[in-house]
């Protein structure tokens, strides 16, 4: 069961498994799985109404029980990233609702939840300035970097990092760190995560292209044309 330490786990997704929202996605990375659903633009309550942009509602639901502090923090992280990426000026006086439901938590759930939210926004057709991807990485007891760790690997860790990047300029959208580490290590891991995020963006492209009936070959060709 020794997985490569510098690779992301296998990603899978299924688009629109739910029928009553504008866009939904079932996303998994390794054994960690989530469902994301978006609805919008919809009517907003007057207390949340804003005339120069849409109101973003973001909820994260754990598998059991009501959301606790841990879930609230995760929810806040997702909302922060979404608020940076959402083109809220496109729909003033309205609400965008994003709901994430946890299915299985087997490590790096923070990053998976952010990726799930991005795919749901993409498939729901809500306006984004850019897409985004999050990568989780830890430093284990031996001082090695483990990218996208499984739950069993996170038991003994010195520090953990979650980075989110945007797709256009590669700007940092989110940094979450825990534990003790050196600045050099931080920089190393940021580079590692940045390169891994490219793989996730590639996954987004191929999956969305497949869903909309374009073969991967043509998608790649279009990409080459763009660059």
């Amino acid at each position, binding site marked *: 069961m020794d997985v490569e330490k510098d690779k992301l786990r296998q990603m*899978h997704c299924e688009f629109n498994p739910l029928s*009553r929202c504008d866009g939904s996605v079932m996303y998994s990375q390794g054994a960690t799985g989530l469902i994301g659903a978006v609805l919008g633009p919809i009517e907003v309550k007057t207390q949340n109404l804003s005339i120069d942009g849409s109101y973003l509602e973001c*909820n994260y639901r754990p*598998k059991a029980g009501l959301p606790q502090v841990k879930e609230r923090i995760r929810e806040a992280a997702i909302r922060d990233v979404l608020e940076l990426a959402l083109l809220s000026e496109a729909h003033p006086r309205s609400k965008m609702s994003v*709901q994430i*439901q946890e*299915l*299985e938590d087997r490590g790096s759930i923070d990053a998976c939840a952010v990726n799930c939210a991005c795919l749901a926004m993409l498939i729901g057709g809500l306006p984004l300035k850019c897409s985004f991807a999050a990568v989780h990485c830890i430093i284990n007891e031996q001082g090695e970097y483990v990218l996208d760790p499984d739950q069993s690997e996170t038991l003994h860790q010195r520090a953990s990092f979650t980075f989110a990047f945007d797709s256009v300029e590669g700007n940092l959208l989110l940094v979450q760190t825990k534990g003790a580490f050196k600045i050099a290590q931080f920089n190393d891991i940021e580079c590692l995560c940045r390169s891994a995020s490219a793989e996730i963006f590639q996954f987004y492209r191929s999956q969305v292209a497949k869903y909309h009936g374009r073969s991967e070959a043509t998608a790649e060709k279009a990409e080459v044309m763009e660059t």
Partner: protein
Amino acid sequence: MFMNSNLFEPGKSKPERSFVQLAVKQNQRFDGRRSNECRDVELTFGADWGTVAVSMGDTKVLTHVTCDMGAPATSRPNEGKLQLNVNLGGVAFLDEVQTTHDQRSLTLNSLLERTFRSSRSVDLESLCVAAEQHVWCIRVDVNVLNHDGNLYDASTIATLAALMHFRRPDVTFTDDELRIYTEKEREFIPLLFLHYPVSVTYCIYKSSGQPIVDPTLLEENAADSVIVLSFNSYQELCSLNAGGTAPTNVRTIMQCARNAATRCKSLVDFVRKALLLDEERRLQGGRLVNGLVALIGNTQHKLSFNKLMSCQKQEPQPAPTEKMELDNESSEKPEVEEIEVKEEPSKQETGDAPMDSSGWLPQDEDSQELSIPSDASTSKAGKGKQNRSKNKANKKPQQKKQTDHSDSEEEARQYI
């Protein structure tokens, strides 16, 4: 301003209602099912104990069971606790209109409470560790993922399957010291059941005497009354929830009850079978059980009612082991298909057997073909309604509706 602002639900508008009424009268359903045909039920077990996802058509429910130590209620000091929670918010987007949301979650919660707690299906006394001090509190969280009608059945099936799947850690209580063992130290213990209840839902319309089973959201919202019956595997009634405005006679309810009893029995059998398969998989796969991630794409880990139960009918004895192989090894997939193909012709008899076998009441066993008896029953219902509306007409101006209905009745008669 926005079309979706109130989260439009199918079946709430007048044209939709009259469409469904008319269709039911002609013994037709929008998705091509017959009035006594249910949607396929699919179970997916998670990697943790007590995690189950159930889907019936587009209705999807995720249930998770957790347990912890707590103090018992003072009125029942030697019994554990069973808590049932329904979550309608989240990805299902059902929470926008507060009034319907409250009503919905209340009915669903009370159905679950009556089906599982009031009927005492779980042996709560076995959950007591030390009387008046320590008992297990079992908590069931039902998360609705998608609502396409018949949330009642989906959540009772999910709850039953999750409770049956769930295992609690072993515990000892000596010298006022509580010790909970981990899975490595001592094997986890499944819950004890006194009986296994499941519910079946019927919709009844004013336009027809024939109730329809397992309604979709369109049918459920357009229904005049909804009957939810819970039976256990011994075919004993656990709860009955009948409401609405359609006049229903005792006969109809008895018909529903009889069919529901057989349906419930086969559902419990199905859940048992699915649990057996899951256990084998766990033994084989070790820690490679991929849990709910299996919901994505590949269908290998989804255990479907039609498939399991039809296999069982064809080869009753050696079924379990053979099915294991078929399900697990993709190399043998063609064989599965073959079996399915073979199954097709016999499905009409076997597939529906659990629902039909005891049939409607003995007098009108063949009411399927809309022969005389069912006509009689509709006219009976019609009479009842007319009488009723006459009474009402004295008080309220309901005549308009009445004429509407009689119009549609005449039309339908011409059709038939």
